[in-house]
């Protein structure tokens, strides 16, 4: 039975100012955007151990009523079961396309973000290691950080990204952005008038890339090359993240997302 959406639904992620990394921030923002688009209120709660609380080990996860759901895919399905959906108006072919593009974003953008923050030595030293374990005392912070790095590098090796250089990764990002830009064209959203979960996902990633300060600007430059993508991000930000009075999710997300993640 579909229960109504409770008022105290909460989204958990890592600490915004000190701890959260590029890829997790992107995923979290995507979920927040999606929920905003569905008009479902959500509070963002920051916890240092959010990753460990999550049922799948990944952030963000939402706590609604007495259920806990993590990651955008399952959250979309969960929300659909409650009776809210953004993609009902699409026909079968469009739904297939939407899924394909979401996979493209996950495959290319998310993996590139993970690569940058865990496999690029400069970024790892200067940004990732200090941030990831920051809530914990030494030596736990180092241990957790190395453990996570080892895990991510193993995965990269399995899918064949370990051998890539940074230039190749940036080129892949560029190709992905080009595809997204071409698909978006001059429309306001990917499926014309109404935003869907694809728009939320793309927004989450692109906005994070654009507003995060890393050791170099190359990643955000790649996105900035495509003006319709930056306009797209601005549009969604204005529509869904500003002009809200509650200080919980929305303005905080917009404000702190603008600030750099560099300590």
């Amino acid at each position: 039975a579909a229960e109504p959406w409770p008022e105290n639904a909460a989204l958990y992620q890592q600490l915004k100012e000190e701890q959260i990394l590029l890829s997790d921030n992107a995923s979290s923002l995507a979920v927040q955007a999606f929920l905003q688009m569905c008009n479902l209120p959500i509070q963002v709660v920051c916890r240092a151990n959010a990753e460990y609380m999550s049922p799948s080990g990944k952030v963000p996860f939402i706590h609604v009523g007495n259920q806990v759901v993590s990651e955008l895919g399952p959250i979309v399905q969960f929300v659909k079961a409650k009776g809210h959906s953004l993609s009902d108006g699409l026909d079968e072919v469009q739904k297939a396309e939407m899924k394909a593009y979401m996979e493209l974003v996950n495959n290319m953008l998310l993996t590139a973000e993970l690569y940058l923050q865990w496999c690029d030595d400069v970024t790892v030293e200067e940004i990732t290691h200090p941030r990831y374990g920051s809530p914990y005392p030494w030596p736990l912070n180092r241990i957790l950080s190395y453990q996570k790095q080892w895990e991510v590098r193993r995965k990269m090796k399995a899918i064949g990204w370990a051998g890539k250089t940074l230039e190749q990764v940036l080129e892949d990002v560029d190709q992905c952005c080009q595809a997204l830009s071409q698909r978006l064209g001059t429309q306001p959203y990917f499926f014309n008038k109404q935003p869907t979960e694809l728009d939320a996902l793309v927004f989450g990633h692109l906005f994070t890339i654009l507003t995060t300060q890393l050791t170099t600007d190359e990643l955000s430059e790649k996105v900035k090359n495509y003006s319709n993508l930056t306009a797209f991000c601005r549009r969604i930000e204005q529509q869904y993240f500003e002009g809200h009075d509650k200080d919980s999710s929305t303005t905080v997300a917009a404000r702190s997302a603008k600030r750099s993640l560099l300590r």
Partner: protein
Amino acid sequence: PQSLLQAYAKFSGAPLTLNTINSSWRAPKGDVPVLISEDIVISQPAKILNFLRKQKYNADYELSAKQGADTLAYIALLEEKLLPALLHTFWVEAENYCSVTKPWFASRIAFPLSLYLPGKMSREALNRILLTRGGPPLYSLTEVEAQIYRDAKECLNLLSKRLGTSQFFFGDTPTTLDAFVFGFLAPIYKVCFPRVQLQEHLKQLPNLCRFCDDILTCYFRLTVSGHSPGGQDMADANLQKLTQLVNKESNLIEKMDDNLRKSPQHPPRKLTTLKLAAGGEESPLNRLSP
């Protein structure tokens, strides 16, 4: 990957000579398929495709920008959703592996490599599946398997919906996406395994079956009877069918005829012959790169 590349080469009209090599070691860096053109050696399917495109063998010339973007997206979908199940069917599923893949593979490569290489590829496949799909809340291999097959079936359904009633994914002429889809679907469709849940699902989608058959008959001149040149002695008739599918004669230039759409970029052009070296018995999953 091999069938993908051959399909692409057919679609774009590139002259390819296919060399079978008996040992994966001989391929530079141990990677197959490998493209050798003059002195350049390229070893991953995506890079080979890029190379072919730069040499003006472009099957996507007439696609719009949006269709090009769609191609990338669908390829990502295939890699993410279909590839794990494919790897599993070929390399991890115990019955399939022991009765079909391993003997097939091992028969084509030299001893003692045949003892080592199939096992290695099987382990790598399992590794990849577990690392990319195996995190919590899926804690056991059976749960992971159930999930990847669900995803694969959903992916097949999505492809079927996208294909609809048209002959190829973007109209009447084949493109990169068709090559990719064919490369993934053909092994599922044609190889006879003891455990065939994916194949059964595929057979319920008639337009995808028709798509595979069309490409096979038009571009690979596959006939029901007929031996692959080179006369391998295969015990299993089904394996022979797949052999015919992917094992081509050394001179493929005669295949460039009116059936292939000529890309406007390459009218009469004297080009270097590109040698595509393929290893083993062309299990399309010789190398686990997408």
